[in-house]
C-alpha cells in the first residue's frame, strides 16, 4: 500500500448498474409490455410460415384446379379458391415468403446507408452537410411511391431493384435521424478527447460515436420495417414489385381485385388481412422497443 492509501476508495462504489443487469431489466420490461409481446407473436407466426409454409399447406400454392374455380370459403378450401382454382389459404401462407425477404433487406440497406450518411453529415457539418442535406431534402420532397415507380420503370422490376430503391430512399430518412443524434454527441468532450490523441475521423465516427447512438437507430429501423412492408406490397400491387408467379400478397390482390365486383371477396380480403396483420405486428413491436428505450 502506498503512503496515500487513504486517498483511495475504501468501499465499493455505489449504484452498481452493470451492463448485464441493465440488459436483463430491459428484457424484462420488454416482456412485460403487451404491445411488444403481441407484435412479436404475429411476427414469429409469419416468419415461421415463410420458412415451413410450403410443407404444411394443404395444397400447392400454384396448383390449379379448373373444376373448382372461385369457390367460396368452405371446409376443404378454408379461404376459398381463385379464378384458376388455386387454394387461397395455401397462397396466403406461402405468399409471406417474398415480402419477408424483400422488406427486411430493404430496411437493412436503408439503415446501413442512413447510418453512414447521418454520421458523415452530422460530424462534418459545414459545406458537406449543407450540400448533402439539400440533396436529401430534394429527394424527400418526392413521394416515395412516385420516386420508386420512376426508378423501377427505368431499371426494370425485380426483387433486387425493389430492395435497392426502397433501401436508398429509406437511407435518406434514417440519415436525418442519425444526423440529429450525431449532433447531440459531436460536441461532447469525449469526442474532443479523441481528437486530442490524434484519432482519425472514421475511428471517431464508428468507434466513439456510433455505439452511443444505437438506441435511436434501432427504433428508427423497426419503424422503417413497417413502412417497408407497406411499400413493397404497394409496389407489388402496381406490378412494379414482386413479380408473378409468386403468390405474393400485394401481387395477388392486384390480380384479383377486379373480381370483388362479382362478389368474390375472398380472393382479395385474406391477402389484405395478411398485409395488415404483418404491418400491425411490426409497429406494435416498434412501439414496445421504443417505450423501453425511452424509459
Amino acid at each position: 500500500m502506498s503512503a496515500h492509501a487513504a486517498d483511495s476508495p475504501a468501499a465499493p462504489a455505489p449504484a452498481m448498474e452493470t451492463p448485464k443487469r441493465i440488459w436483463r431489466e430491459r428484457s424484462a420490461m420488454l416482456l412485460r409490455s403487451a404491445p411488444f409481446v403481441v407484435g412479436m407473436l404475429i411476427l414469429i407466426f409469419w416468419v415461421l410460415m415463410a420458412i415451413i409454409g410450403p410443407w404444411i399447406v394443404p395444397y400447392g400454392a400454384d396448383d390449379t384446379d379448373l373444376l373448382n374455380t372461385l369457390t367460396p370459403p368452405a371446409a376443404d378450401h378454408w379461404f376459398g379458391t381463385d379464378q384458376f382454382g388455386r387454394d387461397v389459404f395455401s397462397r396466403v401462407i406461402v405468399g409471406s415468403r417474398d415480402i419477408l425477404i424483400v422488406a427486411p433487406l430493404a430496411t437493412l440497406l436503408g439503415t446501413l446507408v442512413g447510418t453512414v450518411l447521418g454520421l458523415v453529415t452530422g460530424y462534418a457539418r459545414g459545406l458537406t452537410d449543407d450540400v448533402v442535406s439539400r440533396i436529401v431534402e430534394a429527394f424527400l420532397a418526392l413521394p416515395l411511391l412516385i420516386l420508386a415507380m420512376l426508378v423501377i420503370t427505368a431499371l426494370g422490376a425485380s426483387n433486387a431493384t425493389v430492395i435497392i430503391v426502397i433501401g436508398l430512399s429509406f437511407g435518406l430518412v434514417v440519415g436525418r435521424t442519425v444526423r440529429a443524434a450525431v449532433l447531440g454527441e459531436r460536441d461532447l468532450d469525449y469526442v474532443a478527447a479523441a481528437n486530442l490523441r490524434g484519432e482519425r475521423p472514421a475511428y471517431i465516427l464508428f468507434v466513439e460515436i456510433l455505439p452511443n447512438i444505437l438506441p435511436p437507430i434501432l427504433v428508427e429501423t423497426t419503424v422503417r420495417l413497417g413502412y417497408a412492408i407497406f411499400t413493397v406490397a404497394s409496389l407489388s400491387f402496381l406490378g412494379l414489385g414482386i413479380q408473378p408467379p409468386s403468390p405474393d400478397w400485394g401481387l395477388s390482390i392486384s390480380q384479383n381485385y377486379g373480381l370483388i365486383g362479382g362478389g368474390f371477396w375472398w380472393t382479395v380480403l385474406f391477402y389484405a388481412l395478411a398485409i395488415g396483420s404483418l404491418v400491425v405486428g411490426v409497429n406494435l413491436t416498434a412501439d414496445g422497443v421504443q417505450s423501453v428505450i425511452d424509459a
Partner: protein
Amino acid sequence: MQDATAAALEVRDLDIAYRVRRRDRQVIRGLSFRIGQGETFGLVGESGCGKSTVALAVTRYLPENGRVRTGSIHIGGQDALAMQGEALRQFRTRSISMVYQDPGRALNPSIRIGAQLAEVFEVAGVPASERMDRVEAILGRVRIVDAGRVMGRYPHELSGGMLQRVVIAMALAVDPTLLILDEPTTALDATVEAEVLDLIETLRAEMGSSVLFIGHNLAVIRRMCARVGVLYAGTLVEEGPTREIFSHPRHPYTVGLLRCLPRPGLSKHQTRLDTIPGFLPTSLADVKGCVFAPRCGLAQDICHTTEPPLIPVAEGRVSRCHFHEQAPNLPRTTPPAPPTNRKKIPAFRPVIRADNISKTFGSAAAPVYALRDVSVEIWPGETLGLVGESGSGKTTLAKLLMGLTPPDEKGIIELNGQKLAHRATARQPAELEALQIVFQNPDAALNRSQTIRGIISRPMKKLGGYRGAALTERLSGLMSHIRLAERYLPMRPRQLSGGLKQRVAIARAFAGDPRIVVCDEPTSALDVSVQAAILNLLADLQAEQGVSYLFVSHDLRVVRYISDRIAVLYLGRLMEIGPAEAVFNGPHHPYTESLMAASAAEEASGQLRLKGEIPSAMRPPSGCVFHTRCPRKIGTICETTEPELVQREGDHGIRCHLDLDQMGRTVTVEA
C-alpha cells in the same frame, strides 16, 4: 387558517423512500427539525444526502415513485401531508415559495417578466387593475432599479443574477410562511453570488421571512443561516447554531467536511488536504449501527452495531455520535506533509508559451473578441491558475492551447520552443501526447459505451505505442498511481461515482507522458470531500512526474491552493499575472481585488462589491475594459486609454493606470 405562533416548518420523524425496481429505497430516515418564525435554517450536505428530497417533500412535489412512509410535515401549523386538491393548491400558493438553483429554467422563456410576475398576483386574487403596480413594487423590493424596463423583457434578455432576483421577487410576492432556497447561488458567478446573498439577507431582515436554505457550500451556509442541520445519507447527524457547529463541530462527518476545504491562503506546498475516505452507503436498509461508521476514523465496535441517538451536546445542539466529545480529534486520513518534489526538471525555457494569441468569433461585421492579445508561459513543473468571471475567456484560452479551437492567425503557440499547429488535428503525435486535458464534467468527457480499460488503454496504444505485455504493465502502473482499483477496469463510466470518473479522466490524460495538462474546472462538479482527494492527486502527480498544469477555476481558494502563478482574465484581456502569493496578497488589480472580495463575501457581508454585470464582448468598453465596473477608477484616462500590462515587482504584471501604492492589498491570515 394559520397559527401565528406555530413553527414555520416542523418536520418530525420523516422517512421517505423511492420505489426503484419494485423495491423501496430509503432516502430519508427519521429526520426531525424545526424552523421558528423568522428563523433561517440551513440544511447542508453533499450530493446524494437527500437534501433536495426534503425540499420536494415539503412542497409536496415528490416524484411519482417517492413516498413519505412515516412522519409529519407541518407548515405554519398546517399538516402539509394531509392536503389534497384545492387545499393543496392554496397551500402552494400562499404558504410556501421556492427558489431553485437555475433561474433560467425556473422562468417561462416565452412570457415577459412583468406578465409572469403578474400571474402570481392573479393566483393570489389581486384585482387586475392593481397587479402591475404590485409587480413594479416587488421588483423594486429586490433592488431592480429600472423595474418598468425589466417588466417588458423576456427571460433570455436578462443576466443570470437579474433572473435570480426576479425569481426571488416571485417567491416573495405572496409573503409566504416558508421560503425554500435550494442552492440559490450555485449557478452564479462569485461576484453575482455576493450581490444575491446580500439581497437575500436584506430582504429577510425586512420581511421577517422564515427560510429553509439548502446548500452544499459550507461558506454560504455559514454566512446566511442562524441554525444549521448537517445531513449525511438521509440522516441528520448534527444540528445547532451555525457559528458553533462550524467552529466546534461535534460530529466526525462535519469535522471531516470542514477539513476538506482549502483554507484561505493555503497552498499545496504547505500541506496536503484532508479527505473523507470511502463512499455513501449503497443501501440505508443494510445499515446496522451509525450510518457514518464505515468512513469514520473514530469508529469503535459499538458504532457498527448500535445507532447513536441525537445526543444533546450543548444548549440547542445535538450530535448523532457515540463519541461526540472526541470528534474534533478525528485522525487525519492523509499525511499532512506535502508531496516532496522528487522530480526536478532543469528549466531553461517554458514548456508552453502563447504569444499574443487572440480569438475572434462571429463575422467581420460583428466581431466578438473572446480573447485579445494574451501572452502566457508555463514553466516545467509549475501550475498556472486561470481565474475570471464566466465570459472572461478562461475556457477559450484553454481550448486555444489544446488546439480544439484555432486562434486568430497572428498568434503563436510554442511547445518546448517548437511552434505548434493551431489545430489539434494537424499536430504531431508527440505534441498531442505532451499536451492533455481534464475536462470539467467527466460524464461528457468519458465515452459511456466504453469500459474504463478501453478509455485508458486507447491513448496508451495511440500515443505511447504500447502493446501487449508492456501495455498491461503500463496500465496497472498508472491505475495504482491514480489510486484506482483494477477491479474498475471492466466497468463502464455510469457504474462509477463522480470522483472515480474524474480519476479515470485524469488517468486518460496521464496515459502517455504529458508535459502539461490543462485542468478545466476539474473539481467544480464534485463534492468537497471528493474535490480534496482530486486536488491531492493532482499535486502528487505533479511532484512525481514534474508535469505542468494550466488550472482553470472560479474557486479562488482552490486556485490559490494548487497554483504557483496566477493569471486573471477579464473580457478576454489579461489583467494581472504573477506569483500566486503576490496576486493574492496584493497590491493587486482592482478587478482581482473585487474577485477576492466577492469570494470572501460568501462568509461575511459588507465587503467591497463589484457592481453590475460583465459587459458584452461585442461592444467592449473603450480604454480600460474594466472602467465601467472599477471601484478605483481614476478619471477619464481610464475611459480613453487602455493601460499596458506593466511588470511591477518581480514577475508581477498588472494592467492598470494606478500606481502600486494606490492599489488594494489583501491580508490573508495564515491559519
